[in-house]
């Protein structure tokens, strides 16, 4: 049996909301085969600075279920902090996704962001 690094297949529906985002959106088919450890680092460095309860809601991998993380990443262009997202490469976003997804609330190893 293969332990299974599960590859998520997400159907892309490219909503074109604005010309600026359309380029970014084209590649956001996130899978959880990025670098989990790098993702943790990037999340803590870039997201936790606000999402620690100071200026935005506290956020840890176990704040959301895996399905919820999936949805969040699929539609991140709707988020207030989309500009921060756009500063990161697709590879980096995939790393962050991998970390959050792998440690989501209903994952085998739910994690707080410590």
């Amino acid at each position: 049996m293969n332990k299974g690094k599960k590859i998520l297949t997400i159907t892309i529906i490219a909503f074109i909301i604005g010309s600026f985002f359309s380029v970014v959106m084209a590649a956001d088919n996130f899978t959880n085969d990025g670098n989990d450890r790098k993702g943790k680092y990037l999340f803590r460095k870039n997201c936790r600075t606000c999402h620690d309860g100071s200026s935005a809601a506290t956020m840890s991998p176990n704040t959301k279920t895996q399905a919820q993380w999936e949805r969040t990443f699929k539609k991140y262009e709707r988020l207030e902090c989309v500009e921060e997202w756009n500063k990161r490469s697709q590879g980096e976003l995939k790393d962050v996704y991998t970390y959050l997804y792998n440690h989501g609330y209903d994952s085998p190893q739910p994690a707080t962001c410590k």
Partner: protein
Amino acid sequence: MKKKLMSRRKFLGLSSSAIAGALFGPNLNMLTAAPTDPFDYSILPKGTREYIASNCAMCVNKCGIIGEVVNGKLHKINPNPRHVKSRGMLCAKGNAGVSLPYSPDRLKTPLLRTGKRGEGKWKEISWDEAFKYVAKNLADLKQKYENRSSVAFASTEGFQEEFYYYLVNSFGSLNTVRHTTLCLSTNIQGWSSVFGSFPDADLANAEYVLMLGSDRAQALITPDSVDFQRYKPKGQKLIVLDPRFTETGAKADRWYPIKPRTDQGFVLAMINVIISENLYDHKFVETYTHGFEELKELVAEYTPEWAEKKCEIAADEIRKTAREFADHAPRSVIYPGRRSSFYSHEVYVRQTFAILAAICGCWDTKGAVVPKSSIKLASHDVMFPFFNLTRDRVDREAVNLVKDVVPSAVQCPMIGTGLPDDSCAFLSEKDGSWITFREAVLQDDPYPVRGFFCFKQNPVQSVPNVKKTMKMLEKMEFICVIEQQMSDTAWYADIVLPHSTYLESWDPAHSIGGIWPIVEMRQPVIKPLFDTKTMFEISGGIIHEMLKIPSLWDDIDPVDLVDFKKNVVEDILDKPIQDYIKHQLVNHPGAYKQLLKEGFYTVDGGRPTYGKTLKPGFRFKSKTGKIELFNERYKEFGLFPLPKYCEPEILPDPGQYRFLVGRTAWNTHTSTQNNPYLWEIQKENAVWLNTGEAKKKGIVDGEYVRIKSKIGEQRIKAYVTEKIRPDCVFYVNGWGRKSPGMSRAYKSGASEAEIIDDVLDTISGGVCMHETFVTIKKA
């Protein structure tokens, strides 16, 4: 006579050359002038007697203690009568802790190996030299292997462990390996597969308690060990299943000598009865659970008559137990226990236990199995650099080597064991899997691990198959052990760093989850006797030296290094540990004072809270968000989603016995056998052998026998008794030590690490300590 004395004392004469010896060099005095006039008796300290609250560290329970300190010496350790978790109890080990700081055997100063490894040649070095030496070796290993995970870090639980992780994270290795897979990883995995977390049992309020394989009267867990004895006389019913008539069995209303490795069958049959007789909690099942119909279908074949053949317990007894359990629900407990490193299918056993609790609604209510609550402490939001030269855990990257440590039957997919045969399905990232880790190191698969740090763990004694552990240590180019005593593992180290005892150190606040959640902290009960340090100080010292070596920081973002120096080193490690503790408690006004006074802190007077997972909208940590009787994730991973009965994969040959191991109430694993007070209770271990079997072999009680497995052989006294089934033998762990220095435990009795085969549970990565078969003959 007279002449001899005269001549002997000639040095006292005028011509003695000894007078010339007066010209000793400067700065040689250990004594210095006291800051007052000699013979000024008024300045002498008056006799003092103080009572200082702290918590015990002789085992994992951390019971409340009050040290009685007379004239600076710890005179006695008393139980803290107000402590909510230990209920005013202090066991023999806790009492014997009084001798720990005063053991002449303890490590006193950093030691550096000068001879061959294990030869026992050491020299003293200063802490500064030690820190430099360790940092240099870390840098060398990192340069040589270009992979920070080439250094592994072993440890076990304890308040100072979090500072060990400061060192680990500052170096950047992902190879950490903890005690969990030697102990309760299967339990955590099995219960979590149903409820999403590992619960406690409310023995203080239960009416009916079913214990399988837990000997709470000997292997003490607070408050359980106190509660089951305290509340039993109030009419609580206790049913014990164990191949041995244990001390717990002696307290029980009924003891069933169940055939080893068949507990799952007994509980499956109970579930069968409860479902077929419609005794389950319909409302609970409907509201909170997922997969009941599948479960019902699965257990249909597991009738009490079927189970009787497996467990060798009469079907009627199983039926009776099932009905009683359902009658008393929800105040019925199927006891989760703690160590569950028993069999290769153990996760499914524990899943079955949890399912029984679930269908009877014995969850999160008074007298049932209850999820742990905890008091939230403020964490230090520490950011370590991202190191590029770090590979994933060796026991995760290594695929396919586990075939060497699983029973051969697991590798045969036709048998359908429901167990993976190439890797561990749910490896915990921090705990790792001891057996898999060691196997990967031995095979250099997928990469070489050549550095080994060990804090408070003694793998030479505690990990099954000692020969493999020794081989693993031989492969290491650098071994650093941080310990209180020269353990079997420390003896093979290159450098040994002496850690202060729990009675001499400041330990950070720690939130201990449970039905009665508390926060604990340690303050020094006495001043350190020797030049020892705590992990907080040791990590700080090593990290400071690491910062002086540029090559240790060349694979990170330079900005991260600046942040690290400020946020981790200056703001935490360079500050007094009391600052660290005060920050942890920042959201709990008065807690620090309370901890100094009482050694523990509670919220709401420490009263339990029930039912938080039963409130509308609560989501269990599972795929469906419900209590999963049918585990969706297991299905996804190709495991049994339901607790299908697992037939034994390994069977004894004729003449062989299944080997069981356990504990006594007066020793903690391998760490306390040399304690002088505890040694008074027990001076060696003995192997339990059934009277009938002994008779066949002509072995009499008290006689020495040889016990042999495929791993090794030990010599031990026989305890011939009716209290054990004929198909198994048993002894307690921690004896028959390798170190002649463990003078009291050296070659006294037998070691389990020399006997137990390294068999792996491939769901959790835990070891299976009861999958070894032995033969016995007269010594």
